[in-house]
């Protein structure tokens, strides 16, 4: 099955980027990769993906910042953003708990650790 949708996977964990990308490619999606928020912005401008799978906690520019920049940019606000968040119920003290992910403009959320079957359902539901 082939699919002309381009999905950009952004995470500072290269193993997570690779495993998610392999699953998306096996389902026929085109995939681009980036490893922090700054690099992701460059890839977005170059390739204009239909969807972002975006980690929250990243160096240089975190996922919340990048998500809000995308959603406030008239040229890119239609890109679907799925936030990967490890700031789950049982992880109460991280740098980012001051800002609940649900106050961002993301279209949906994928909890970490990732269940790849669940991830594919969320991806398909949002495209």
């Amino acid at each position: 099955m082939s699919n002309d949708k381009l999905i950009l996977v952004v995470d500072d964990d290269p193993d997570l980027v690779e495993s998610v990308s392999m699953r998306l490619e096996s389902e026929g999606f085109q995939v681009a990769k980036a490893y922090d928020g700054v690099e992701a912005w460059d890839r977005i401008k170059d390739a204009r993906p239909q969807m972002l799978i975006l980690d929250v906690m990243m160096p240089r520019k975190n996922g919340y910042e990048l998500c809000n920049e995308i959603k406030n940019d008239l040229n890119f606000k239609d890109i679907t953003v799925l936030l990967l968040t490890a700031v789950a119920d049982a992880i109460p003290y991280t740098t980012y708990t001051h800002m609940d992910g649900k106050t961002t403009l993301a279209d949906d959320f994928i909890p970490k650790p990732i269940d790849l079957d669940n991830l594919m359902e969320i991806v398909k539901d949002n495209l």
Partner: protein
Amino acid sequence: MATIGIKGLKISAELCLVRLRAGPRSSGLLPAFCSRLAGSQINMPFLSAESQTGSILVSCCVDAAQQALLKKVLSAEPVLQERAEYTAGVGLLTLFPHQSSLGLFGRSLRALAAADLRVFAMASSIGALTYVLDYTQLNKAAAVIQVCFELVSNHAPFRAEFTVTQGTQLRPDRRD
């Protein structure tokens, strides 16, 4: 020599390395070790296990702040305590993507050796190649690697900016 491009270099926080060696009939060593750490909610940023002529060598890194807890946890299990060797003050240098490139492995290992940088352990994974090095030498190692690989222009070696720890306490807004 042809240039090899890499997308990123990642430098960890300070860690403690623990190594466990065991003989051929110690297949339960790794499960017992992992079970003990999981039970005490100790994260493992690095874990590798190798088998040579039947013997097993497990190498694992934990956050430096959890070194005392790690020793306490392993001391409760005699078979783990007697086999554990600790090395404080190590860190991880991770190159990515790896994609099973022997050229990346060979060239990076040679560069680290040429700079007299001791490699305590290494492992390749689906997306990355990771070396366990002296924590105080990580910046030097990153500089050495950047001489022999081409890092993409919009990326610089980055350090971990946060540590996620496990806990059982719920956030105030998620309590029933």
